[in-house]
C-alpha cells in the first residue's frame, strides 16, 4: 500500500522529492473510509445471509450457524485469492475486505501461493501462516491471559 520513496542521492533530488511530496495529493482518507465502511458492511451482510441460511437449512441456533458461515466466508476469500480477484477488490475495499475473515483467508492463501515454489512442506505448509500467524499468536496469548484472570477471579 504505502509506496516507498527512493532515497534521494543529492540535494537537487532531495529538493525535488520534497516538492513532489508537498504537492502530492493527501491519501483520500475520507473516500477510503467510506469505501471500507460500505464494502465491510456488505461482507458482513453476506455473512449474515449465510448465517441465516445455515440456521434454516440445518435447524441451528444463530450462534451455531455462525461457524459454517465463517467457514464459507473463508472459502470465498480463499477462492477469490486463488483466482487473483481478491487483490483487485481489495484495492477498492481496503480494510473492508481485510478486516473480516476474508482477509484472514487471503493472507493464508497469498502466503501459501507465494512460497509454493519452495515445495509443499517448506513452502505451502511452512509459510502458509507467515502473515496470519501473528493474528493467531496474539489472539491466543490475549485469550490465555483473559481466561486466566477469569479462572482466578471469583
Amino acid at each position, binding site marked *: *500500500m504505502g509506496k516507498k520513496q527512493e532515497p534521494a542521492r543529492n540535494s537537487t533530488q532531495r529538493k525535488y522529492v520534497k516538492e513532489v511530496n508537498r504537492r502530492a495529493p493527501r*491519501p483520500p*482518507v475520507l473516500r*477510503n*473510509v467510506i*469505501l*471500507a*465502511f*460500505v464494502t*465491510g*458492511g*456488505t*461482507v*458482513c*451482510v453476506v*455473512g*449474515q*445471509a*449465510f*448465517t*441465516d441460511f445455515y440456521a434454516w437449512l440445518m435447524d441451528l441456533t444463530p450462534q451455531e450457524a*455462525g*461457524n459454517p458461515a*465463517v*467457514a464459507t466466508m*473463508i472459502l470465498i476469500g*480463499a*477462492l477469490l485469492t*486463488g483466482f*487473483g480477484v481478491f*487483490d483487485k477488490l481489495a484495492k477498492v475495499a*481496503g*480494510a*473492508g475486505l*481485510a*478486516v473480516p*475473515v476474508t*482477509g*484472514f*483467508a487471503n493472507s*493464508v492463501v497469498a502466503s*501459501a*501461493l507465494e512460497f*509454493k515454489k519452495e515445495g509443499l512442506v517448506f513452502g*505451502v505448509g511452512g509459510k502458509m501462516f507467515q502473515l496470519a500467524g*501473528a*493474528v*493467531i499468536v*496474539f*489472539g*491466543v496469548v*490475549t*485469550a*490465555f491471559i*483473559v*481466561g*486466566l484472570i*477469569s*479462572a*482466578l477471579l471469583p
Partner: protein
Amino acid sequence: MGQYVAAFVVGGAICALGQVLLDTTKFSPGHILSGFTVAGGVLAGLGLYEPLIKFAGAGATMPISSFGNALAQGAMKEAAKNGVIGVLTGMFELTSTGITAAIVFGFFVALIFNPKGGK
C-alpha cells in the same frame, strides 16, 4: 431485516475504523489485524463482545475481532467448568472452525492455483 441493517452498520464501522488506522498511522495491516484480535479478546473478557454479537450478528462475527473473542470465550467457558487447566483445553473450542477452514481451504487452493502476476 433489522438484523441485516445492524450487521451492515456495525461490520462496516469496524472495517472503517481499520481503514482509519491504515491511512493515518504507520501500522501495517498485520499490526492492525493483530490489534483487532487482541481487542476482541479483551472485550470478551469484559463481557462486551457477546452483547455486540447479539445486536449485530454477522456484523460482529465476521470481523477478525470475533476470532479473539471466540478464543477468549472458549478459554473462559472451560475455565469456569474445570479451573485453570480449562484455559488450555478450552482455548480452541470455538475457533476450531475458522482455523481448520483456513488451513484446509488454504492448502487446497494453494495446490490448485498458481501465483498470479510476476513470473
